[in-house]
């Protein structure tokens, strides 16, 4: 009967109840929608970044992760690639060379970051979608950023020469510009070149089939459990081409270990917004507190009669808490549902936020700036629980006040 009374008490003050539960619903809907959007955008950015400069499992030279020294290379990278390819049926294993150098045209010479890639890179890189002129590169060709192309005064079909290191001591390789890309990130468009891995390897004649990393990627966002351990075992089985020694100078990393800054940026951003939404929930619960206090004030005589006929103080308190819980539950159900409903168009259509390119957690990668929300069910339920708990907590003070009423004084209340 107490639950029935609680629900009926809410119904008999429909405007107040709708306002209070509406506040809970609105707050929760915003939290759910924003979580789906924010997490969806971070998943998308991290996934794009991971696929461009890392993989679900990354094989690098020992120490490269700490130093980022371009001379720390994986040798016999082709053999390692072949070993890792055996671990996945629908994944891809890519070799990349990350280095710095100079790109020269007839008009200018510019210091740039250079990524040496294989043809299969087009399957995973968003850069293919950022081409504003030309096409993806093939052997003997390069892709340059739009601002770099302007500085070099080159277009599609023009020749450039790439040298590695601060000078041309190592010699250079002539490449034809196959395509020009524009990501929207100024730095990437001004100082970044993609070139074929094989062409860049010719500039490192004293290294055997070198690459900065060999990256294994699977189509799913999450890697299968144990993939890194399997990769470690596969890598350790590779025999070097020099005297049959086993390779012990390689690191096998997950993408989280290979891109800790990106991961930390995501965590920090999420933590900050979680804090904001948690505060929002607190503000919403104050609205519920206000309603319940007003309701208590308006029902003081009624509470006095209930206490007078023998209702224990804690039963009165329970009644008030039940009212708060009912308000909260209604608001949370409506809010959670509304938040998920509003997520649907964002899941299907997304929103093109060109400015997101500058927010990419890793530089010199193209990300898909069309941000799609995702249904983050677990967090949505956590938000549901958080808002509900806060609503119930907000009812505790009015409940305590109700329970401490003197029946005689309460029945005199006008």
């Amino acid at each position, binding site marked *: 009967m107490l639950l029935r009374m609680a629900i009926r008490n809410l119904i008999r003050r429909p405007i107040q109840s709708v306002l209070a539960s509406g506040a809970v619903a609105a707050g929760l809907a915003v939290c759910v929608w924003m979580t789906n959007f924010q997490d969806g955008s971070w998943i998308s950015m991290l996934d794009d970044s991971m696929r461009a400069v890392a993989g679900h499992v990354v094989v690098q030279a020992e120490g490269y992760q700490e130093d980022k020294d371009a001379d720390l290379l994986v040798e016999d990278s082709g053999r390692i690639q072949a070993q890792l390819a055996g671990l996945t049926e629908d994944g891809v294993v890519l070799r990349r060379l990350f280095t710095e150098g100079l790109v020269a045209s007839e008009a200018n010479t510019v210091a740039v970051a250079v990524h040496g890639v294989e043809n299969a890179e087009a399957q995973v890189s968003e850069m293919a979608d950022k081409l504003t002129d030309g096409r993806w590169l093939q052997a003997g060709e390069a892709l340059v950023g739009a601002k770099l192309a302007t500085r070099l005064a080159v277009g599609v079909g023009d020749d450039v020469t790439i040298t590695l290191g601060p000078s041309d001591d190592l010699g250079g390789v002539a490449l034809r510009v196959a395509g020009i890309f524009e990501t929207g990130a100024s730095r990437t468009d001004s100082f970044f070149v993609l070139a074929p891995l094989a062409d860049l390897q010719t500039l490192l004649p004293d290294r055997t089939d070198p690459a900065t990393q060999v990256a294994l990627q699977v189509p799913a966002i999450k890697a299968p459990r144990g993939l890194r351990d399997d990769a470690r075992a596969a890598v350790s089985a590779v025999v070097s081409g020099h005297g049959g020694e086993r390779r012990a100078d390689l690191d096998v990393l997950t993408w989280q270990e290979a891109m800790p800054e990106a991961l930390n940026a995501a965590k920090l951003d999420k933590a900050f917004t979680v804090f904001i939404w948690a505060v929002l929930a607190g503000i919403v619960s104050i609205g519920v507190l206000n309603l319940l206090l007003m309701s208590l004030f308006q029902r003081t*005589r009624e509470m006095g*009669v209930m206490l007078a*006929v*023998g*209702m*224990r103080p804690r039963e009165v308190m329970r009644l008030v808490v039940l009212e708060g819980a009912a308000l909260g539950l209604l608001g949370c159900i409506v809010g959670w549902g509304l938040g998920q409903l509003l997520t649907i168009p964002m899941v299907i259509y997304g929103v093109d936020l060109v400015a997101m390119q500058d927010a990419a957690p890793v530089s010199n990668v193209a990300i898909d700036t069309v941000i799609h929300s995702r249904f983050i069910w677990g967090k949505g339920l956590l938000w549901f629980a958080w808002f509900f708990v806060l609503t119930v907590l907000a009812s505790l003070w009015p409940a305590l006040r109700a329970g401490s009423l003197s029946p005689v004084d309460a*029945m005199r209340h006008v």
Partner: protein
Amino acid sequence: MSTVSVQSAVRTYDQGPIPVRALDGVDFTLESGEFAALMGPSGSGKTTLLNLIGGLDTATEGRVFVDGTDVGALDRTGRSDLRRDRIGFIFQSYNLVPVLTARENTEFVMMLQGVPAAERARRATEMLAAVGLAGMEDRRPSELSGGQQQRVAVARAIATKPAIVLADEPTANLDSETKADLIAMMRRLNEEEGVTFLFSTHDPEVIAAARRVITLRDGRIANDERRGTD
């Protein structure tokens, strides 16, 4: 054992520099089956005495026993339980819970006692019929007249078979015809069911119906008249 025994009860209120003695040494007993009224001018201590007997207040001095229990010795929860189990209340107004039907209001105290739902419903229906409200069980208080609401309050008060029913100005807001009906109903319950009633009242009709009239003046019993009223 008397149903109610008040022994030298004093109730003092601290209001400003001079304490107010609302009750100034009251002694009386009430036996089972009595139909008694407390009368006196405003400020004579009627409501205070009723509150002491009902466990809504505690005496500053003296003792009050209800059905053998020392009310002053009980804590807040104990007094709630006493009111729930042994005392029925009828107030001047705002007796009923607005969101409950007549049946649910009648069941309310039984619900607090933990009486099973089926038994509660049966007794509530029986009580509402006894007070002349058969067929109105599912109406809310807003759908009942003042007199009908008071009948529901009576039904609730007696549904738990209390040791005593305390009624504080129960007819104050009723028209004369309704008042007469209510008084007659409560007399009938007293005579046929043996329900003990103690009223606090100014109403001459209630006083005329009572078989015992206790007059209070300045916090003391000025007169205690027993009658052989029909």
